[in-house]
């Protein structure tokens, strides 16, 4: 079990992590979801003992990362946000290096990385710098796993990786989870939240919600409309000025609109848009996804 208790961390004038408390169970696949600067990396670095919290305690499987940092460092497999391998070393040399440094051999824990490593093994003589994003990521994951960590700590592992590789990566994480490894992962991509057992929505150093992704979506009770319009910007302005508007924001090609009233129908919204001389294709009620929830949660606070 991993527990954060009232964790604070500031850098000069930035309150990077602001009173974070939460629990992660052993064997869970837990996600921290939040935009740039949310404080995910800072939180991870406090968990793996690279930073000391200004306030609060962390309990990592019964260890205190501040005092028992040596033991903590042994049980964590950490993949920093930046690609942390050596570009001029080959796949094999990278893996060999990390295995030796962490006091093990590739053979000893090969079973752990086999599924992942097999895919890149044909290119094992190639320098890491010449690999595709997805291959780099597999290598980095293999390196983080090679010493059989109890906790896998992955900071934005899918940033800058193509969609196919991202999906593959999450499948790999599912398999690792089945082997009993606790996985904590951060990501700025809302669509990846659904693949976690539980997620924490994070922004400006604060945690806004911690729950299974399905629960977060179902907690979202307000009716949500998607509006397809010709001129997004003008419509956005017009809707913002409407007295019943709770929130409206661009969402891909469309606008998402939340009304203050509980039982408003699409017709009412269409009527308002027409009255403003705005042309629209369609107004439709939809099921919110996790991104809508995130926006709603952070909107209420901000």
């Amino acid at each position, binding site marked *: 079990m991993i527990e954060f208790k009232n964790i604070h961390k500031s850098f000069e004038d930035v309150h990077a992590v602001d009173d974070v408390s939460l629990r992660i169970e052993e064997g869970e696949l837990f996600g921290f979801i939040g935009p740039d600067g949310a404080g995910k990396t800072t939180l991870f*670095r406090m968990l*793996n*003992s*690279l*930073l*000391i919290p200004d306030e609060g305690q962390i309990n990592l499987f019964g260890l205190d990362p501040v005092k028992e*940092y*040596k033991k903590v*460092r*042994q049980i*964590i497999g*950490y993949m*920093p*946000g*930046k*690609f*942390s*391998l*050596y*570009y*001029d*070393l080959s796949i094999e*040399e990278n893996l*060999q*290096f*990390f295995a*030796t*440094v*962490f*006091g093990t051999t590739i053979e000893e824990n090969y079973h752990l990385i086999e599924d992942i490593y097999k895919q890149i093994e044909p290119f094992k003589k190639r*320098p890491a710098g010449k690999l595709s994003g997805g291959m780099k990521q597999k290598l980095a994951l293999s*390196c983080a796993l090679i010493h059989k960590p109890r906790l896998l700590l992955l900071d934005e592992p899918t940033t800058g990786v193509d969609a196919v590789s991202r999906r593959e990566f999450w499948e790999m994480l599912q398999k690792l989870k089945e082997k009993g490894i606790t996985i904590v992962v951060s990501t700025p991509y809302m669509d990846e939240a659904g693949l976690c057992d539980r997620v924490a929505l994070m922004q400006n150093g604060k945690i806004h919600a911690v729950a299974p992704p399905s629960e977060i979506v179902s907690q979202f009770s307000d009716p949500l409309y998607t509006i397809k319009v010709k001129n997004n910007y003008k419509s956005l302005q017009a809707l913002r000025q409407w007295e019943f508007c709770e929130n409206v924001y661009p969402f891909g090609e469309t606008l998402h609109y939340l009304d203050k009233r509980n039982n408003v129908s699409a017709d009412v919204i269409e009527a308002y848009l027409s009255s403003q001389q705005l042309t629209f294709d369609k107004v439709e009620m939809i099921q919110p996804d996790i991104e809508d929830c995130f926006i709603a949660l952070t909107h209420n606070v901000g």
Partner: protein
Amino acid sequence: MNRFIAFVKKEFLHIFRDYRTMLILFIMPIAQILIFGFAITTEIKDASIAILDKSKDEVTRELTQKLLSSGYFNNDAYLTSESQIEPAFNDQRVKMVVVFEPEFGRNLQKEGTANVQLVCDASDPNQARMLSQFAEGIFASYASQGVVKGIQPEVRMFYNESLEGVYMSIPGIMAMILMLVSAMMTSISITREKEYGSMEVLLISPLKPLQIIMGKVTPYVMMALINAVSILALGYFVFGVPVKGSIILLLMECLLFTILALSLGILISTVAKNQMVAMFMSMFALMLPVILLSGFIFPVENMPLPLRIISNIIPPKWFIIIVKTIMLKGGGLLYVWKETLILIGFVVLFVTLSVKKFKIRLQ
């Protein structure tokens, strides 16, 4: 221990796979010493001189012939009186005028000595000094060939001293190369790990901070020593600069200076955020003082007082003194123990500082 070896191995791979690093490590020292060495010798190739021969005997003619065939001098004019010397200089072509006294050959035969005046254009003092020394060397070698008796064999020393430029620049080049290889390369290689994020993984690995530092430093100690040896070898074989003192002592001093430079490099890497910053800090904080204030190019004695005082806190200054003493004067530890102690003092200071600043955490 395995860990440490793996780490050192990785560092060597980084070095060998980066052609720029290899260039800096191996080509640059050689290039520098050749440039410095030959820049000085080529400067005196084909310098225009004029001859004012008041004796016009066999000896002076032979000497003139020797000067002109040496390849260093070109005859520009034969002068007939002293009043022509100044105009000869003024039209900027003639760099030196050789004046043989009247009865030169006879004096030499009768009394064993004869006077020759070397009048140099001192507007370029360096060149003037070298031209005169070359000419002196040629006279001395003529004298020592046994054509004339009664001339002290020590005059041959003059000839060696005419290559003083290379003599003096070798200690400076050693200081500069060792500083560059050690301080700049380590600081860059440590900050590169920070920049690429691999430092985070190294820090949370079971590697101890001291192992990380030592692992980073070990390859560069070796490289630096290889460089020191190759500079000495080049100096010896190409320019005939001997090591008069103990080579072991000299290499130990090089090692000491290398460690000093390495600790400076580590110190820089604890402050610098990325490779660029590390490089510029090494350049400006280390290389410039080495070049300008250590006595490498400008003699310390000629500096204004404030700079002379500052030069005392420039470690290479002491190293250069040590190397000069051991190499050129053949002095032993007895002659350089003070400077050595000063260097050890610097090492203790910088190592303490850098190990203290090199943290087990990020902040």
